[in-house]
């Protein structure tokens, strides 16, 4: 027990170090690693932001077995809230909290009616909401800047440190992502997580054990949406410009896809899925316009043969190649 705990914490520290130093140019310190330039660091930061939103989708889809087609809209709510508040001179910390809170409240308001009726109706309601939110972003020019968007969004000053330089901002987002990841991990290992598993696997039985299925579903949906809001609050200062297009319905579909591709219901799934959606296109530039075509095709293959996503696929391969590694849940 304690040996495995030691290995876990060692691995965690190592992973943390790698993530912290990935974009840094180490040639000055005698190491043959040039680091990432401005754009590479930007992409890494975008990966983290996307992963935060995907974690929310994973909570909704993977852990509580619902469907959301509005994560991009929640990202938009967070992004516009943060952009407008920080432009009005309110500190980033407050704007960040407000973004998550607003997404949470909207999530509750959407979930209450949708969860009263049959399965899939939450998917329908979120779909309608995603389009409507996008229309509001486009049409309410006085507030959102309409199709022209909002520019000049400032990156925050944290403990006296200005995060404007791309490396500092990456570290800032890394820290926020780490905190949000820890919160998600904590919730999933608490009795709440057990209740989520129960209501996903067998809602009727869960209900008979005193688990208020409707309330927990509502909470997972609202918290998952709040993660979308938090991601949006990081997205706005990352790009320093927002307009409605990244918050359209088709983007919400992509968030759902990336979570399922990474592995819905697996803790690392959203990170893997976000990497495939954000980082992979950068390596596969040679595929040019065919990238989405190949991606869609692979998703369909994955769904037919391994609906648990890439994380499950890796575990399955590992079990097949290293039978001694012990039995693994597929």
């Amino acid at each position, binding site marked *: 027990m304690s040996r495995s705990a030691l290995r876990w914490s060692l691995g965690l520290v190592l992973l943390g170090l790698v993530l912290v130093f990935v974009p840094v140019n180490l040639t000055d310190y005698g190491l043959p690693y040039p680091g990432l330039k401005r754009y590479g660091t930007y992409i890494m930061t975008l990966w983290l932001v996307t992963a935060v939103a995907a974690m929310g989708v994973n909570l909704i889809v993977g852990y509580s077995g619902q469907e959301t087609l509005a994560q991009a809209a929640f990202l938009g709510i967070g992004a516009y809230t943060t952009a407008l508040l920080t432009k009005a001179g309110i500190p980033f910390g407050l704007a960040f909290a407000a973004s998550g809170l607003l997404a949470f409240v909207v999530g509750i308001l959407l979930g209450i009616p949708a969860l009263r009726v049959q399965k899939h109706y939450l998917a329908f309601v979120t779909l*309608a909401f995603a389009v409507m939110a996008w229309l509001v972003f486009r*049409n309410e020019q006085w507030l959102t800047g309409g199709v022209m968007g909002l520019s000049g969004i400032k990156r925050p000053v944290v403990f006296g440190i200005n995060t404007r330089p791309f490396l500092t901002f990456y570290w800032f987002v890394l820290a926020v992502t780490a905190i949000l990841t820890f919160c998600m991990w904590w919730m999933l290992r608490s009795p709440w997580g057990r209740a989520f598993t129960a209501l996903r696997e067998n809602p009727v039985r869960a209900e008979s054990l005193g688990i208020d299925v409707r309330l927990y579903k509502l909470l997972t949906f609202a918290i998952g949406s709040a993660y979308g809001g938090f991601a949006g609050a990081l997205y706005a200062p990352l790009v320093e410009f927002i307009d409605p297009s990244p918050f359209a319905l088709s983007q919400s579909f992509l968030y759902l896809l990336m979570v399922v591709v990474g592995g819905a219901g697996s803790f690392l799934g959203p990170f893997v899925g976000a990497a495939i959606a954000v980082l992979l296109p950068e390596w596969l530039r040679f595929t040019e316009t065919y990238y989405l075509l190949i991606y869609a095709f692979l998703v369909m293959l994955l769904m037919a043969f391994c609906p648990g996503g890439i994380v499950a696929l890796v575990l399955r391969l590992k079990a097949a190649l290293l039978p001694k590694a012990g039995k693994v849940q597929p």
Partner: protein
Amino acid sequence: MAEILQLVIAGLATGAIYALAAIGFTLLWQTSQTINFAQGEFVMLPAFFALVAMNWFGWPFWLSCLVAILVSVLLLGMVFKVIVVDPMLKQGVLPLVISTIALGLLLREGAKDFYSAEAQPFPYIFPDRQVSVLGVQLSLSQIGVLLIALAVIAALQLFLSRTRTGRQMQATAQNPTVARILGVPVERMILYTFIINAALAAMASLLISPIYLAKFSNGEHLGLAAFVAAIVGGFNQVRGAIAGGLLVGVIDNLAAAYVSTGYRQSVPLILLVLFILFRPQGLLGRREERAV
């Protein structure tokens, strides 16, 4: 008054096309629990089949349309069922939903990469002339679209209610288990619904593309419209899907004219949400037991 009449007729014409797409959507859901998120792309694609036949092989327009319908039945009906849906059924609803979303992306990108990223002109089936009915100028083409769509729908209704196969299909749609016990060849009936869906989608495609121009991204709007029409109609009845389609078409046009163009898209969606809130069984649907 004349303006409203024109708007309603134009709305019925597009609404009838939405209905064609929504019927197939409903049929697939009923017989095989498939929520086809690629339905919009199923309506987008057949026009490209026709364009390929016309522009690459130089075939006449009528032949190309026929070929487009046949190829759709083959690819979007049979191949879709055998290659995409059948292997997924054992994996449950969510993987299938994801798979159809991915299929939609695949068809969209495929049309873009292998034909063109740009909109393509598509010939009208009817001449674009006007006729005067009761003092109101109406477009011949709109009336033609409306008539064709309604004829197809009527034929489908007759098929479903008057023929043995049609009744077997309805039995399958209502309860596959009971249908199987009664000796209905359920598997074949499910295949028929996929074929009918593809044929209806192809019809819709040939009727809508002259108006929309054939473009890879058309599916996004069409899929949403079919989706809203199906849910508003009740999701479990063909008649509901027809009513839903016509309603969405008319409301969309009236909203565009009298609400605001910026928010016209939202009006059918608000309708959708209201239905989910107050009449979840839909316009003509049956009530289902409360979940949990």
